[in-house]
């Protein structure tokens, strides 16, 4: 473990830029922390944090000088690895039918800055879905294989976080090239650095960092442990997959469905939801065609339309499909949970449906949530 003084963060970012990486990291935009291309550490949300609850998000200026004093916003890395819209191919009409137009569009080599532990787990899930098994997804692979991952441990968990329950954080354990822990201790501001790959090792070699001292290691460890103790939400996962499989007819699905807007927000903010639609478009003349892949959602009717009709007509069936896929059938499909406890689906649900609460009710068998309680919204002026 090494130590990087906070003033030298740009040395690390510059080393990545010299290797030809396009840096993507958290920035403040329109009142939230989102991911975008950054030039240097000054683009990061320095001194910002956010307060999150079911259906509400508030950006707050903490004025503490922290580079990574927040968790995750509405964006996730899937928008770079599996973009919202991808052209799969294009073709033009010819005398004998059509011919494919070769495309040589280069995919940028991204360095993801500030990837959280939950998101490392989400990327591992997408890797399992897109790269393992008989069908490897070419589009995902060519974005994924070059990506450099600079992880940052969470030391200030959010109100809807429950990564500790899902065994997915707050500490980055694997799947990164380099991982930082931001520490404020006795007036000192520094990062401890752990290396996770040969590429990470090379970058680190260039920076000539000192070994972290024992007190520095302890301070970093303490920050992460504290974070683990302050999760905003929790979920009991013992036996959950089997339990949910036995709750298909539970009356609580009807209760959730009354609140559910079937708008699809939860699935599009989820860092592991990967469902897509494929659309063919033609020009008016019929001489040119393209095939596009776009993010889709199990909450749309078209998604579950098969020959002869829709197999999930009701909000009950669609919400149940989403929740039980995440937490139950994902295990039999991919040998893992589909949820990493990032809390995005809770925060960004416009009506604040809370996955952890729904699971609690389904587990206990009691129906506690009622519609239209008008419980009030936290004050926006902090």
């Amino acid at each position, binding site marked *: 473990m090494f130590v990087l003084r906070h003033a030298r963060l740009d040395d690390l970012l510059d080393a990545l830029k010299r290797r030809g990486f396009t840096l993507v990291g958290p920035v403040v*935009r*329109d*009142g*939230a922390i*989102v991911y975008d291309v950054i030039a240097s550490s000054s683009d990061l949300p320095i001194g910002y944090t956010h307060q999150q609850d079911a*259906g*509400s*998000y*508030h*950006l707050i200026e903490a004025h503490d000088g922290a580079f990574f004093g927040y968790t995750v*916003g*509405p*964006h996730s890395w899937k*928008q770079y690895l599996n973009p*919202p*819209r991808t052209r799969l191919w294009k073709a033009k009409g010819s005398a004998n039918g059509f011919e494919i137009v070769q495309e040589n569009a280069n995919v940028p080599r991204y360095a993801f800055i500030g990837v959280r532990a939950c998101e490392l787990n989400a990327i591992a899930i997408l890797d399992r879905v897109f790269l393992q098994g008989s069908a490897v997804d070419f589009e995902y692979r060519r974005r994924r294989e070059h990506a450099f991952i600079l992880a940052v441990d969470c030391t200030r968990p959010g109100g809807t976080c429950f990564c500790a329950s899902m065994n997915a954080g707050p500490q980055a354990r694997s799947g990164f090239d380099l991982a930082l822990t931001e520490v404020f201790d006795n007036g000192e501001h520094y990062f401890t650095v752990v290396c996770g790959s040969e590429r990470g090792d090379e970058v680190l070699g260039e920076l000539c960092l000192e070994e972290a001292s024992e007190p520095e290691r302890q301070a970093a460890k303490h920050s992460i442990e504290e974070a683990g103790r302050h999760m905003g939400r929790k979920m009991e996962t013992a036996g959950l997959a089997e339990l949910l499989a036995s709750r298909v007819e539970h009356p609580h699905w009807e209760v959730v469905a*009354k*609140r*559910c*807007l*079937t*708008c*699809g*927000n939860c699935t*599009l*903010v989820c860092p592991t939801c990967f469902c897509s639609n494929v*659309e*063919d*478009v*033609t*020009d*008016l*003349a*019929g001489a040119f065609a393209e095939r596009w892949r*776009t*993010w889709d*959602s199990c*909450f*749309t*009717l*078209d998604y579950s339309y098969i020959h002869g009709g829709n197999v999930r007509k009701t*909000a009950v069936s669609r919400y149940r499909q989403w929740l039980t896929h995440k937490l139950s059938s994902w295990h039999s499909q991919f040998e893992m949970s589909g949820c990493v406890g990032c809390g995005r689906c809770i*925060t*960004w*649900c*416009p*009506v*604040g449906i809370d996955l952890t609460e729904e699971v609690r009710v389904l587990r206990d068998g009691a129906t506690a949530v009622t*519609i*239209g309680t*008008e*419980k*009030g*919204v936290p004050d*926006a002026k902090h």
Partner: protein
Amino acid sequence: MRDKSKPKLAVWKFSSCDGCQLSLLDCEDELLDLASKIEIANFPEASRAVVKGPYELSLVEGSISTPHDAQRIQEVRRQSKFLVTIGACATAGGIQALRNFADVAEFARYVYAAPQYIETLSNSTPIAYHVFVDFELRGCPINKAQLVEVIGAFLNNRRPNVPHYSVCMECKRRGTICVMVAQGIPCLGPVTHAGCGALCPAYRRGCYGCFGPMETPNTVALSSRWKELGAANADLVRAYRTFNAFSEVFRKESVAHER
């Protein structure tokens, strides 16, 4: 000389502002391609030259708001192989359907010096209330890219890619921050049909519902959330009662908050 191999297109206007049919003329880049593939046979907004029906494709703008409209739409249907309605007037009765919640004779008395000459129906209704419609293209106004898509799909004998899900899907795909969650701004996006590309939220405004209800709108739950965000009953009535006021779901929801 007419090229008889080309399908004939007609554009019809009923009670409307003309904005939707003008979208066709706004298709500047595609207009020449369009004219090479289709004969624009009856489009008074663009040309006085009218070719007789029947027509392979009719685009119908506007709602039925007079006895004359109600008769004329039957004739349009008879002359059209495919009939596509375009815009909120044709698909939901339009903003003029606000009369459906009031007494139209009363309105006429206030507006016109000699209301006895006004021949109008008490309700403004969508085209589909009167004749069979092959496809409805939503919006106030319609999105011209979607119009080109519908015509392109018709010409190439395929299904148009016009999704019926929520505006939220478009917001999230373009990376817009949810104005309701992050700013506490009431937004109709979750119950509104996609198609505009989530324009208003991208400029930090709540959705106004220009494209009418999405496929499975849960207006009851959304209204409940609006109230938590501080909206009064009158705000809800106004929000649901704009361009798509007479669409079944928005109509019911606005009436529910009127009392």
